[in-house]
């Protein structure tokens, strides 16, 4: 009989009008690993932030070992026994201090005595490390440790609090295979000690290795709970991605000549090589889970990072860009994902954001910008994308997310391209903006090859002529977007992992 460490009932949280958690019910039993799956924006991170005290819930109840749990802040959550190891490992350690100081960081922060007793500190830290079987030189600075060891230090420090719930947010995303194995061994040990573990990941191999139960989240709610052995991994992925498709109305045109041809492309040393052909007047979507290699492909095509191996030809000529400027000069454009990090220039107005990549085309002698030409180009782009704004001189941050996205996508459609890559072009936009952007992508596609990368299958179905599936940094499926076999597509999204052998 397992006891419930945490029970969550009817949890809601909204940011402004944006409801992120819409009534989450979830139990986390002690001594079990619960894997939480969900696409971007499903509400995973918000749920974690409520649990670890960063955000307060709007409504709903959390009980920890039967007592109401509403932490006032991260420190309070920690004291109550909810420990979180964040995705970004360096958030959890102080690189300049030695291992012992890192392990004792929380007690150092709480004070007690003015001077530090090094020997006693090392002995105490040694005990903490031994408790989880961590063998490290206590005097070593953390900066000299591998990522995995840093993470184990962060976990060991967390464990000193005798946690009831340990939350691991994509802990293996920057670890190698052997490093991950050490983490898994530690998780097994903690599970044996009766700690409830909430493990957030997209890596099917991790999930298969660790999960006792899987919870899928979608649109701020739990969309699936899987706890009967054998676990239904494909079902969990389906529950996370959803499959209600709304009025897909794609007329597939006859594709033109080959625009981009990649042969033997290898994105990671251990990944399988693949070929990719993109044609003029064809919109191709690549779907796959987060971390499946979609963005790595975009990086290779846009000259951000050279592929490990493989040849690329663009419009019949060898293509090997070394930096984005070369890709742009060849007519390969990338509208990057995560607009606030990679695309929006917050200090600029709409017009300046729209014309950013192509200032030379609006500049005359001495590089002087021709205001009228720039403004006309901006107004054309605003009209074409349907950006809702008062005028091109409004600040970009006065726009809603959907309209910001139209601007940063629209900047790459203002000039003719050979290959337009759109990485998550529908990220964080409302349904209307999604339709507008999708329509604009299709309407302007005749003279170029278009590649759309999106984790959501719905989005791929709405925009593409052809859908490719990516998994483990290689292509595993190719579908014409016509009477598509969704079950097969879903299996490919999750299923590649089902086929991979588990590392010993």
């Amino acid at each position, binding site marked *: 009989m397992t006891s419930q460490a945490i029970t969550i009932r009817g949890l809601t949280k909204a940011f402004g009008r944006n409801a992120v958690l819409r009534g989450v019910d979830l139990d986390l039993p002690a001594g079990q690993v619960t894997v939480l799956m969900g696409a971007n924006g499903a509400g995973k991170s918000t749920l974690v932030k409520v649990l670890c005290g960063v955000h307060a819930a709007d409504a709903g109840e959390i009980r920890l070992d039967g007592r109401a749990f509403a932490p006032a802040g991260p420190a309070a959550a920690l004291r109550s026994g909810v420990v979180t190891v964040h995705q970004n490992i360096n958030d959890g350690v102080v690189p300049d201090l030695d291992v012992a100081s890192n392990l004792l960081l929380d007690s150092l922060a709480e004070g007690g005595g003015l001077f530090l007793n090094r020997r006693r500190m090392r002995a105490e830290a040694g005990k903490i490390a031994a408790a989880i079987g961590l063998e490290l030189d206590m005097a070593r600075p953390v900066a000299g440790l591998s990522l995995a060891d840093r993470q184990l230090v962060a976990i060991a420090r967390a464990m000193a609090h005798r946690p009831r719930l340990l939350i691991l947010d994509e802990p293996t995303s920057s670890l190698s295979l052997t490093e991950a194995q050490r983490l898994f061994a530690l998780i097994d040990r903690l599970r044996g000690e009766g700690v409830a573990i909430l493990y957030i990941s997209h890596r099917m191999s991790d999930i298969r290795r660790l999960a006792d139960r899987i919870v899928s989240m979608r649109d701020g709610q739990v969309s699936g709970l899987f706890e009967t052995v054998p676990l239904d991994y494909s079902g969990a992925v389906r529950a996370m991605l959803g499959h209600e498709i709304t009025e897909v109305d794609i007329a597939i045109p006859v594709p033109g000549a080959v625009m981009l041809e990649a042969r033997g492309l290898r994105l990671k040393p251990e990944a399988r090589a693949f070929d990719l052909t993109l044609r003029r007047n064809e919109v191709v979507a690549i779907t796959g889970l987060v971390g499946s290699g979609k963005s790595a492909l975009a990086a290779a095509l846009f000259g951000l990072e050279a592929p490990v191996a493989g040849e690329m030809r663009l419009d019949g000529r060898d293509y090997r860009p070394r930096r984005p400027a070369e890709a742009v000069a060849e007519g390969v454009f990338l509208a990057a994902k995560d607009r606030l990090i990679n695309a929006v220039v917050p200090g600029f107005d709409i017009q300046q954001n729209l014309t950013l990549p192509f200032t030379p085309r609006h500049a005359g002698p001495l*590089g002087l910008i021709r205001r009228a030409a720039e403004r006309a180009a901006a107004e054309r782009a605003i009209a074409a994308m349907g950006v809702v704004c008062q005028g091109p001189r409004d600040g970009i941050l006065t726009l809603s997310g959907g309209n910001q996205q139209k601007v940063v996508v629209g900047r790459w459609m203002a000039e003719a391209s050979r290959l337009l890559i759109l990485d998550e072009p529908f990220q964080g936009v409302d349904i209307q903006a999604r339709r507008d952007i999708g329509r604009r992508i299709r309407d302007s596609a005749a003279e170029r090859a278009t590649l759309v990368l999106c984790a959501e299958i719905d989005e791929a179905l709405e925009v593409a002529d052809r859908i490719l599936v990516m998994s483990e940094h290689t292509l595993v499926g190719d579908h014409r977007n016509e009477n598509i076999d969704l079950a097969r597509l879903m299996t490919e999204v999750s299923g590649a992992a089902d086929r991979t052998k588990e590392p010993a």
Partner: protein
Amino acid sequence: MKSLSLTELAIRYGFLLLMAGLIVVFSVLRPAFLSPQSGVFILQSVAITGILALGVTATLVVDGFDLSIGAVATSAMMLSAYVMVIWEMGAVPAVLLCLGMGALVGLVNGLLIVKMRVPDLLATLGMMFLLVGLQRIPTQGNSISTGMMLPGGQAAEGSFAPEFLMLGRHRIDFILPDLVPLSVVVLIVIALLTWAFLELTRHGRVMYAIGSNAQAAGLAGINVAGYRILAYVISGVMASIGGILLAARLGRGDVASGNNLLLDSVAAALIGFAVLGAAKPNAFGTAIGALFVGILLQGLTMLNAPYYTQDFIKGAVLVVALVFTFALSGRVGRARR
């Protein structure tokens, strides 16, 4: 045009109104304050710091900082004196060598920051230290002037070329005969050029993009590293121009001069953030910032405020301007989001 709230009006025009108010108050108390001579004196007093401030503005635009400008200026002063007094060369080689030195220092700063990944403050701090020391080595710590004793025992024969001294001392007939010093003309020309470069050309636009979101700029195909380096080269060249004017005004290579250049010019650039509610580095604001400090000091001096209160006053103006920029306009900016 949208109607502006009172706070927005205050943020936009507050600083300019304050400056106008100061001019009115000083003119009432001391009518001589309004004379052309007084105006020109103010401009002359801020010419060198103004030029340096415009240079540092370029680095601020790309979200960098150049602490070495003061040291570059004094190095240029010493170099020009050395070239003319000890090597006995003319004005043109002196000016060209100084400009080249400024560009080289800027290039090294830029490479340290972009290629070696040294944080901007630390790289330029190191460069400042290095230059302060370097400029004293050739003369064993002495100032350079005609007739000085050389290590060999003989006196230095060379002298400052008259054309060079004109840069600092010549006055042009404007309204009154012999009114406007050449250094003021240089300041105005450089201010206009900097403004045009930053506001009207695509290069300035791209530099602002880098300062606002370098990652996005890089993904838009912009050569982020190149423009960063360019900003430091601009800053170095401007600082060397300031140093040339300083040498031309003093007529000697004075090891004790130019101590305040760095702080004064950085203050002018930062005060510039508050002008017209820009909340970002901008050439017009920098020029106004330098002018504001000049007006305030000239007015207070005419009211017999002692010289030793000057730094205090400059510091107070800077703090008020920074509050203006970050607290007030930041609040409005957040509300709009």
